[in-house]
């Protein structure tokens, strides 16, 4: 298993992601956005940050960069892809995931820990993710929205990966920090091989830094390491 960590101008979680994945004992390397190939990689991590300064819309320009054509092809073939924070925005803008991410309900940039309730067993990423996890968020535009039909499909097809909840796992309006539709914190594509989420598993890999629940969220990478 070797993981491609994409780098756009303005990515700022790329080093955390690379270091985090390597700390799990999994090989990883950066791939610059102007590259057109993912040859030699078996998973893709689209990191957070402010790609292209969030110009136009968050993730809009990055989603149309050369490497994203390769990511689309890779995902179509069933390859595992995870996008975190700005990476989630990029995957939505690229049309690899449904819906979009808007300015938080209360306009504030939110930088705090959240509880997540895993809600899906679908695909590569969710296997074994079977308990509440505590991970950080850091975003201004994380309010997940989609049309009613898409929302019904996501709920009906088990494609809501995570919902914001309280420490007891209750999905409440209060725990829904950014005002996302149905408290959605992460979604999956139809096959479940593409996961997008606002919270940062790569920032929760070490108890010294406040928690290690991110290890569970990225455990799929370790499982198929061989």
């Amino acid at each position, binding site marked *: 298993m070797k993981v491609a960590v994409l780098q756009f101008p303005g990515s700022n979680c790329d080093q955390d992601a690379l270091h985090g994945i390597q700390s799990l004992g999994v090989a990883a390397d950066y791939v610059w956005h102007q590259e057109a190939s993912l040859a030699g990689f078996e998973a893709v991590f689209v990191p957070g940050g402010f790609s292209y300064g969030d110009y136009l819309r968050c993730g809009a320009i990055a989603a149309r960069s050369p490497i994203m054509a390769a990511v689309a092809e890779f995902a179509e073939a069933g390859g595992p892809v995870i996008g975190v924070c700005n990476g989630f925005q990029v995957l939505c803008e690229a049309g690899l995931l449904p819906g979009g991410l*808007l300015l938080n*309900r209360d306009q504030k940039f939110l930088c705090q820990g959240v509880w997540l309730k895993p809600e899906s067993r679908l695909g590569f990423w969710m296997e074994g993710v079977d308990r509440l996890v505590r991970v950080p968020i850091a975003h201004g535009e994380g*309010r997940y929205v*989609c049309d009613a039909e898409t929302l019904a499909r996501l709920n009906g097809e088990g494609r809501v990966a995570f919902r914001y909840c309280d420490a007891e796992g209750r999905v409440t309006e209060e725990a829904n920090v950014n005002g996302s539709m149905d408290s959605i914190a992460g979604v999956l594509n139809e096959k479940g091989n593409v996961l997008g989420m606002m919270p940062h598993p790569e920032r929760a890999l070490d108890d010294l830094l406040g928690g290690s629940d991110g290890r569970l969220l990225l455990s799929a990478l370790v499982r198929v390491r061989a």
Partner: protein
Amino acid sequence: MVTVRVYVTLKPELLDSAGRTVADSLHRLGFEEVADVRVGRMIELKLESFDEARVKEMSDRLLANPVIEDFRFEAVS
């Protein structure tokens, strides 16, 4: 040269939290008649030739995100 203005707005059914902030601020300034504010984006293009279908394609593929936004455009000169 043709100047074309593309107006991009959040779909009406989606909460515009930036708009809500602007409305609150207008109320604080005494403009109580403001019932609602929606914030959009205007993108001005200078084109060597104006082809409606191509501007629609530009808007669809990059300038707006049809999942969350509507757009319209007009040639102004």
